[in-house]
């Protein structure tokens, strides 16, 4: 199996006590290393749930999930935390940077939870990650001293600092203007070109055009899975 990600019959049902809400219905998906894949769908289509399961933030109700050869669908919360720490990187719509904390320290955050990395190594890795997003001149800036695009680039650096095998971006441009959106998507494309696997969750067609492959969800099922033909300029 050369796949980075294999999902087999993944079903997720939210139990709200009186009612059971199905969010994903027997989803099958395979993703290989180096892909840039956009997960599309209207709100309520199950794309966020899929993203949470792929991101090891949640367990599926049933089905099998292999990430990098590891069966993760039965892991407990501490084991999942360890996988997130070592193998995954997250970029969120609202950046989620720590206020009144420098860019460098924000990027260092994931490494705080990795005991194998000491403080000097941590600082060095964070600097490298910030260089990757062209922010090496903003190390000491706090979030309120940075523009929206810069903040999101700090967040991307934070997602990259642990050298993840997979980068998950949940509506990364949702809070940005169109010019900055292009800037951030370019950054993601560059990262993909240098070999990183990226999963992008979005509801905008414009954004999905930056990806190489598009998976469309509706009512918890994959309705379309195709390569992007008219891909936006790299």
């Amino acid at each position, binding site marked *: 199996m050369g796949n980075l990600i294999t999902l087999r019959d993944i079903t997720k049902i939210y139990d709200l006590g009186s009612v059971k809400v199905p969010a994903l219905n027997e989803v099958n998906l395979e993703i290989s290393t180096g892909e840039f894949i956009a997960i599309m769908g209207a709100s309520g289509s199950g794309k966020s749930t899929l993203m*949470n399961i792929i*991101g090891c*933030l*949640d367990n599926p109700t049933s089905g099998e999930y292999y990430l990098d050869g590891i069966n993760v669908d039965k892991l407990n*919360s*501490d084991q999942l*935390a*360890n996988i*997130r*720490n*070592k193998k995954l990187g*997250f970029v*969120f719509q*609202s950046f*989620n940077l*720590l*206020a*009144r*904390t420098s860019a460098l320290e924000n990027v260092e*955050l*994931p490494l*705080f*939870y*990795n*005991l194998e990395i000491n403080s000097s190594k941590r600082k060095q890795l964070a600097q490298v990650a910030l260089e990757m997003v062209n922010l090496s001149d903003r190390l000491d800036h706090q979030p309120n001293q940075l523009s929206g695009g810069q903040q999101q680039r700090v967040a991307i650096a*934070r997602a990259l600092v*642990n050298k993840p095998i997979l980068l998950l971006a949940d509506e990364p441009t949702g809070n940005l203007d169109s010019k900055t959106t292009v800037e951030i998507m370019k950054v993601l494309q560059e990262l993909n070109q240098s070999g990183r696997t990226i999963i992008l969750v979005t509801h905008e067609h414009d954004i999905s055009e930056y990806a190489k492959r598009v998976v469309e969800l509706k009512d918890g099922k994959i309705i379309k899975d195709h390569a992007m033909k008219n891909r936006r300029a790299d």
Partner: protein
Amino acid sequence: MNYLNSVKIAYRALFKNKTRSFLTMLGIIIGVGSVITMLAIGQGSSDSIKAEISQLGTNVIIVFPTAQQRGGVRSEAGTTQDLTEDHVTEIIAGCPSVRYATPVVYSTGQIIAGGQNWRTQIIGVYSDYLKIRNLEVELGTVYTAQDESRSGKVCLLGKTVSDNLFGEDVNPVGQTIRINRIPFKVIGVLEEKGQSMMGQDQDDMIIAPFSTVQKRIRAIDHINMIFISAVSENSIDQAIEEIDQVLRTHLKLVSGQEAPYDIRSQSEIVEMFSSTSRIMILLLASIAVISLIVGGIGIMNIMLVSVTERTREIGLRMAVGARKIDILFQFLIEAILLSVLGGIIGIIIGLISSQALSKILNWPTTVTPYSIIISFIFATAVGIFFGWYPARKAAKLHPIEALRYE
């Protein structure tokens, strides 16, 4: 996640909210500060009472007559007239553990010397009394056994009496004073002892031979009490036993019959006073402990606010790999840091205010190391106890819900 990191993270979080952190700590600061100050006041007053009582003399034992009882009606203490000088003679002869013993009779009288007069207490005792109570004669001499046997009209003046009758820096030795119109020759002045901690002037008295005061001034046969000193500190209990034996034999008491006297050693008197001050210390300490608990509730309140406010931060930390235990520790350490920092500041404030009380108000205060240790441990325990619930709440959050929290 190593613990030093957790402490650093917690420290940063607290430093970002300086005012709030300080106000939260204030409860602990006041709590710990007052625990230390209250215990210092309690300890100080108990120390000074002990010091005061030890001024009674060395290895002192006192025999008091007890309350008189006639047909079920009890009078005040000291009204029985069963004790006489003979008993003292018996004690001196029959108790090997007793070094000195003297009968004591008290009288008060108007003292006249020249144009001045002064009202004071006259103590009639053997000259051994000075040895029992560690009193020294500053000017002149002590009266002799001859003065005693002849009921000689001689006396020793306390400094206050001397100053008031003759003026300061005047040597009254050789002068004559009248006690209740009876002329007495002043043969000595006692060394100044100063005011006692209870505010009593220890130099306002006259000492005269026992037989003189008993026969010439009071005209009675009984005595007011017996002052005794034991041979050594270790023989006090033995001496009390012997005294009791001698007195019971002499008073012809059958076994089981209640004695008309009480024998108290100095340490028992100390005990009596310190039990009162112990109750005071307990009272003060419990008030202080309550304020510590109130401070702890303040910490819990702020930590709960903090957890709610930082829900997204918690979600993010979980997303990048923090385990539940890491989140639990982060918030628990914040709470402990608040209480420990508060405790340290509180200790400093407690030390300063104890010093201030003794300097400005002249209150005796003694800060004991154990009060510092106890209050510090207690403050830390308060932090752990009241920090646990908010930290647990934070650790129980689900990462997805925490990330979405608005």
